[in-house]
Every structure is written in C-alpha cells, then in structure tokens.
C-alpha cells in the first residue's frame, strides 16, 4: 500500500456502468467490508433479483452514508499497490459543469466508462470535454459490458475508434488514453486478466491505475490566487481571502492584483487562523498587503507576482463545446462567463472555426452559427476587465463556464490571450 494520493474522476453516459465499476473496484481492493457485500447479496437473492448487482450495493451504501455521520459523502476511497485513490462520480446533469470548473480541482486523472453495446452517447461527449477542460492528465477508457457483446474484438475496436474520434474532436491527446475491454459486472480485466478476451494483451484496469503518473502540485507555475472576498479586519486592515490555484505566496513578496491593477508587499499570511510564512496550491488563505485599501481590490481579481502579473484580456481565443442552447449561437452573443471567482459578461465576437466531430479537423472556417453539440474556436471580448490565462500556460486559470438564461450553455478553455494595454 502506498500513501501517494490520486483523485480519480469516474465519467461516462447514464447507465454505462459507472457505479458498478466503482463497486467492483471497492470490492476487488477490499474496501467494502465482506459482510456488507454478503448482506446485500442475500437481500438481492431474497428479492428474487437474478444476479447480484453491484449497482444495487452502491445505492444502498449511498443511502447508508447519507444517514450516517460521514460528512464527505461524495467521495469514496480505495487503495492499490501504488496509490490511495479518492473517487468522484461526476454528476450527469450539465448544470453541475459550472461547479466543476469554478470549484476546487477534484481530479488528477479519470476513468471513462463506455458501454460496448451502446458506444459513444451524449453524456460521453460532454464528460470527455469536461475532462479536457478541467485539465485531466490521463484518461483510462473502460469499454464496459463486454459480456453483453460476447467479448467480441470487433465490437471493442468499433467503440475504441468512436471514442478516439471523440477525443480528437476535443483535441485530447490520444497518447494519454488507455483502452481496456472490461465487464464491471462479471469482473473481466479489472483485477485479473480475463480468459474471455484472449485477443487483448494490454493493461488490465488495476495495472493502468497503478501506472498513472504521480500528480504534481502546480508549485512551479507563477502565483495565481483568485480573490474570493475582501474584508476589513480591525487591527489588521484590508484582508483579501481566497484559494491559491498555482505557485507559492511568501511573506515579503511583491504582489499585483489584476485587473484592479494595484499592488504591494505581502505583510502577513494566515491559514487556519495561524500565521504562516508561505502558502501553496490548494491552501485557503487570508493575507494583508501593505498600502491596499478595501476599495482598491475586489472579488474576481487575481493576485500574482508583480514581476509576472496575472494577464488581463482585451480579447481571448478559446475552444468551446456548446452543451445546450435553445437555438443557435452567432457572433455578437453576450452571455456571462464564469472563470475562477469572476463573473463577467463577454461578447463572442467571432466564430473562427467549427470542428468536425468525426475527425477533429476543422470542418468550417468562420461558420455563421454554432449549436448544441458543436465544438468550436471563438474569439471573446470581455465587457469588463477580466483576468484569465492561456490554459497551456496556467490550466487552473484557463477554463470557464458560459451561462445564460439560468443554464450552463457551454464550457471552454482559453487558447490565447490578447493582453489589454
């Protein structure tokens, strides 16, 4: 067992077997007490439910957790030889996408579950794009329910090629994806190599999990700390509060707040009510900067080093996927963009390219419109100053959700930023 930690997202279309796979993994790694499994197995038999269903066990465990005192009920844990995994089963509904983009980073890598008998389905596409937007490093693709297609290699290859097309469409590097034919239900190629898929000689799921790269906290990137709130604390003065996304903040650092465009020297940093000399990615801090008043900075500002200040976009080019829009999106559309702690109305100034879903190549230059399901490259002009970064440089500050009419319309990542003068 190892104490190296991995946050793992489980993604995929409804009913493709995510819960069953989580249940299977918990079971195979000895993370569900044997007696719990036994009890559910008996219950299932009594109720005359033919087979034993992991999905059923998982539902029951969820109810137990909900009744219990555990606070962190959304995360389950299991360990392999290499890592201690915390799993998050991503919500299916599109409206949670905003939360996953603006919230704390929850996943280093992901397992995509695709049912062999169904192939790529709408939520498969959304989740894959979300994974890319959230900066997921590696994707393990479990082609599940192989038992329902007689463990046929042809079917497996068909699904693999469909998923590969999808990855290309959103420009997810397919070298970072590992495909495995599995049956979460029967246990094929999960913890043990299956005799049913003799044509397959790649890694089984547990091996692929063990071989995931170690997550590296983004300490080498420049400091980026989106400001959540600004307080006046008696005896201290102005105290901005927020979570460090990248880099390190030290006492004595000369920092700059953008787009408010003010700066000064960090006098004190507190975390968990204790004064600390420095703070790192993931830390929630309050701090105090010499010469900064309460009205000089605001929520949505980003704090960074004075010598490498946060970018402020005059315009930026981004790759987006339209998740739901009642009609079509054309140039001039001005919804609200949610990026880190900022919410700014932005105009989609031009539609630059539309991608072909099957090849990932540019299907159309300067399309007249884009609609639900389309992946496109667009140029965006914020209506108020917005600090945002190219996701190739600082992925943590390079993604956004687009909302309008109370819905999440699209999600995207920033390709390049045209800085404001």
């Amino acid at each position, binding site marked *: 067992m190892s104490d190296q930690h991995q946050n793992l997202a489980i993604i995929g279309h409804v009913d493709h077997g995510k819960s069953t796979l989580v249940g299977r993994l918990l079971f195979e790694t000895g993370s569900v007490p044997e007696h719990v499994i036994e009890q559910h197995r008996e219950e299932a038999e009594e109720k005359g439910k033919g087979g034993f269903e992991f999905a059923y066990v998982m539902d029951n465990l969820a109810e137990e957790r909900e009744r219990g005192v555990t606070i962190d009920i959304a995360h389950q844990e299991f360990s392999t030889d290499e890592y201690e995994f915390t799993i998050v089963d991503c919500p299916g509904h599109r409206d949670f996408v905003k939360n996953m983009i603006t919230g704390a980073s929850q996943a280093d890598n992901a397992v995509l579950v695709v049912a062999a008998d169904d192939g790529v389905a709408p939520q498969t596409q959304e989740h894959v794009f979300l994974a890319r937007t959230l900066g997921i490093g590696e994707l393990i693709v479990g082609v599940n329910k192989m038992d329902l297609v007689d463990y046929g290699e042809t079917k497996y290859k068909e699904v693999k090629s469909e998923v590969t097309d999808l990855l290309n469409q959103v420009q997810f590097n397919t070298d970072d994806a590992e495909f495995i034919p599995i049956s979460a239900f029967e246990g094929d190629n999960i913890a043990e190599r299956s005799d049913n898929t003799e044509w397959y000689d790649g890694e089984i799921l547990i091996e692929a999990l063990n071989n995931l790269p170690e997550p590296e906290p983004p300490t080498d990137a420049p400091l980026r700390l989106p400001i959540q709130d600004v307080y006046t*604390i008696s005896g201290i003065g102005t105290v901005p509060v927020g979570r460090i996304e990248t880099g390190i903040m030290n006492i004595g650092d000369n920092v700059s707040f953008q787009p408010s465009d003010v700066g000064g020297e960090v006098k004190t940093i507190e975390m968990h009510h204790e004064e600390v000399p420095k703070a790192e990615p993931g830390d929630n801090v309050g701090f105090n900067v010499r010469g900064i008043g309460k009205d000089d900075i605001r929520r949505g500002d980003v704090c960074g080093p004075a010598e490498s200040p946060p970018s402020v976009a005059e315009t930026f080019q981004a790759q987006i996927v339209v998740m739901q829009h009642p009609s079509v999106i054309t140039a001039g559309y001005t919804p609200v963009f949610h990026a880190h702690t900022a919410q700014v109305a932005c105009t989609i100034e031009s539609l630059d390219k539309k991608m072909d879903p099957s090849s990932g190549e540019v299907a159309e230059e300067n399309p007249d419109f884009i609609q639900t399901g389309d992946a496109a490259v667009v140029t965006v002009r914020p209506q108020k100053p917005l600090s945002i970064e190219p996701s190739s440089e600082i992925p943590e500050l390079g993604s956004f959700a687009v909302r309008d009419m109370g819905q999440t319309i699209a999600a995207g990542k920033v390709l390049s930023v045209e800085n404001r003068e």
Partner: protein
Amino acid sequence: MGKVAAKIKVMPQSPEIDLDDLQDRLEDSLPEGAKINGVERDDVAFGLVALLPTVIVPDDAGGTEAVEEGFAEVEGVESISVESVGRI
C-alpha cells in the same frame, strides 16, 4: 438519476457573525428538494470562519443554482462558492 452532494463554502460578512444562527438561517433558506447533510467549519484567517454545508440535491434538479441563490440572500452571508460536487 441519483443524488449529488455539493460542498458549499459560505463566508460570513465578518468574524463577529454568530455561526450557529447563520447555520439555522441557511437551513431555512433551502429550496424544496434540497437538504443539508452536515456542516463543517473551516478556520480561515484573522478570526474568519467559513461554514461548509454539504447540500444534497437530485442530479436532475438543474444544479446548485437554487441553493446558491437562497444562501446568497441570507443575512450575514458575504459570499457563496461551490467547492466540490459529486454523486453519492
């Protein structure tokens, strides 16, 4: 459709806000169908303490928007942010 647990960070307007009362008011502001499944407290800095209720909403309820809007109206709340979401 299953249920989703969202951990929501609620920052009080000042270190002087009574957190027990604030917690009660958050509870009262919940829209129908949502429930709080435990509240953590996180010492932030300079006397500021964040409340971190875990709110359970149905996966098909259209996200945490209604809960966030309710919380934002509550007296004594400075800001709301959703820290994490996951199916339970």
